[in-house]
């Protein structure tokens, strides 16, 4: 491999790692819900769309950035609370498949509501982050992706600290470990779930802003979940750290595969390659790289 080919390899890898952080950003929303309630929230993508559309519509109506951010965060918290109260609480103790189907239906309702309230136009979302690359040793690195990675890193650190060092975080973990034991020691399950859905709404807002600035705020935002699913399978559905590590692995792997293996297949393989990797991991390690192993007695 000559020097330029090596530089190119590094560039592809870095680009993939940074893209992977963006995938992880969406995956974290899934993890939060799954970790505490065992529900695979398929509506996470729709929540990302709803958050970004609400934010950009408010700013277009003249609201300052911070005010729009605060209002959207409040709206997302309210949405999370409403979902917990109106959909999940009545379905408590139902099978995981029932809950999954409920979130699938919820995804369509939220997507429809987003277009009903804010319209179908495509919006530009400018967060003030430069899209121009900077060049380091002959390698182009995206400023935007780097800042997005920093934001994701801060969010992961905050969530990790929250789970480890706060009473509410400990309660979350207790519920995640054993709901019945948590109930037995007096933890209020409904409150914890409400808090978790609120947190997932806020995570959706962060993901919506960063992905919205990348893609434009449009319906396709709800499809970013397709990028998060292999990350979840690889990292484990209940590990925030797993989401980040798997995001990095998936991002780098799919980019390297597209560039170096793709031409053999005529290109366009990264869409399914990440799923192929996830499938192999699923066969070898069903709970993912960082997922909690379940020991159940039948």
């Amino acid at each position, binding site marked *: 491999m000559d020097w330029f080919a090596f530089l*190119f390899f590094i*560039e*592809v890898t870095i*680009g*993939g790692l*940074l*893209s992977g952080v963006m995938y992880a950003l969406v995956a974290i929303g899934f993890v939060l819900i799954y970790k505490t309630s065992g529900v695979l929230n398929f509506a996470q993508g729709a929540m990302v769309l709803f958050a970004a559309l609400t934010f950009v519509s408010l700013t277009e*109506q003249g609201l300052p950035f911070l005010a729009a951010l605060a209002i959207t965060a409040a709206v997302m918290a309210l949405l999370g609370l409403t979902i917990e109260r109106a959909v999940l609480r009545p379905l408590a103790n139902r099978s995981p498949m029932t809950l999954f189907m409920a979130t699938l239906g919820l995804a369509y309702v939220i997507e*429809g509501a987003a*277009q*009903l*309230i*804010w*319209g*179908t*136009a*495509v*919006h*530009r*979302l*400018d967060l003030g982050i430069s*899209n*121009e*690359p900077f060049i380091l040793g002959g390698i*182009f690195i*995206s400023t*935007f*992706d780097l800042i997005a990675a920093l934001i994701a890193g801060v969010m992961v650190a905050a969530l990790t600290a929250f789970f480890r060092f706060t009473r509410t975080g400990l309660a979350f973990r207790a519920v995640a470990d054993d709901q019945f034991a948590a109930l037995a020691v007096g933890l209020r399950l409904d409150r914890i779930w409400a808090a978790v859905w609120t947190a997932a709404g806020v995570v959706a807002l962060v993901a919506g802003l960063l*992905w919205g600035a*990348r*893609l*434009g*705020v*449009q*319906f*396709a935002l709800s*499809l*970013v979940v397709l*990028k998060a699913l292999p990350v979840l399978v690889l990292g484990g559905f209940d590990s925030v750290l797993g989401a980040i590590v798997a995001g990095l692995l998936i991002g780098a792997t*799919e*980019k390297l595969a*597209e*560039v170096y293996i*793709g031409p053999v297949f*005529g*290109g*366009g*393989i*990264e*869409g*399914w390659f990440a799923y192929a990797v996830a499938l192999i991991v699923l066969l070898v390690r069903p709970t993912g790289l960082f997922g909690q192993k379940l020991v159940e007695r039948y």
Partner: protein
Amino acid sequence: MSIFKRLAPALLAATILAGGVTTVHADDQHFPLQSYRVGPYAAGGTGFFGGFIDYLNLINTRDGGVNGVKLTWSEGETEYEVEKGVEVYQRLKTNPGIAAWNPLSVGIAYAMLDGITADKVPLITINHGRTDTTDGRVFPYAFPLLLNPYSETSGIVNYIAAKEGGLEALKGKKIAVLYHGSPYGKETIPIYELLAEKYGFSLVQIEVPHPGSEQQSQWLQIRQERPDYVVLRGWGVMNPVALSTAQRNGFPVDHIIGNVWSNSEEDVTPAGDAAIGYTAITTQASGKEYPVLQEIIKTVYGAGQGNLADQARIGSVYHNLGIVNGILNVEAVRIAQGKFGNRTLTGDEVRWGFEHLQLTPERVKELGAENLFHSINVTYDNHEGEGYVTFQQWDGQKWNVVSDWIAPDWALLRPIIEKSSEAYAAEKGLTLRTEADAENVSQ
């Protein structure tokens, strides 16, 4: 904007889902519309179908219909999904006096092809559709009006050649085509290969998997290939992502040429300054300075009957495409009436009208559309109609026309199209229609 205005498009969609928009009478000429006003492609759907309806409304309001025959329409929501499009086709085909179908979807058009052929009703796929449906000898009811994908490719290559100083100057140049990973995106692979061979430029074609929200690896490949131009054959979210990823990878935007489905405001606005200087092909100019647009604003929107909820979109690319589509449909009906009488026509009679849809630049001017589009010359065996193309450049606020009207190389393309259509005819056991066959019309 008030919440009621925000809700208006959705309420309109709900009304449409609940039933039709206009009352259908047996003595009217009817247009069933498989529109998409919600879902991922709603921005394009509302613009196109809004423009189409605005023009039909203009003809009814200003002229009392086409020679006294009122134009009606009914809408069914497809969300751009093929199965829903087919369901809407089955539901609306029972309406009397259907003139033509205009689904604005390759997938839905493919799925309807056998049905509309049996029904003997024209299927209009303006600026898109299967390239070989251009051959009316094999596909009597399909009309890829103005521009098929091969003509588009030829127009783009001719434009690049003009920028470089002529077709000879293409020798030694490199063009990368970034295409959507779908049958639509792949449609032009062979014609780019053929033109590369003919004109001596080297070619690399790179697929972007649907929906195209992530393109880092493709643009890294482009950087490695160092092409002189990138042709963007995108759709939906793929387009702004391509432009912003190009900027992130240092590729000059003024060397990216968009195809006809990468040329709208929705394709460039989300990319912000990364799109400034981007050029794209079009068959119809944007803007509202054309007399027909002014009449629509005055007569239709002035009476509160405009179809676009957001009037800022009047004159946008999709809205103007809808208006041009309206002009072509209405003129086909008018031409057919000239032969069959001023009454409600059958689908086959309207097919005859489309096969005689010859609008010279002078006639286009009379219709108030001078410079909005150039001309069309449809015949029984050429269902595209030799549409001219032009190129527009985005300045951050609006599109500006940067070329004359350019003719694709139809003579070069025709044998390739015939080879494909004749293979289809042989496979299906079809006999090639003659001009005399085309004159036989079902009443």
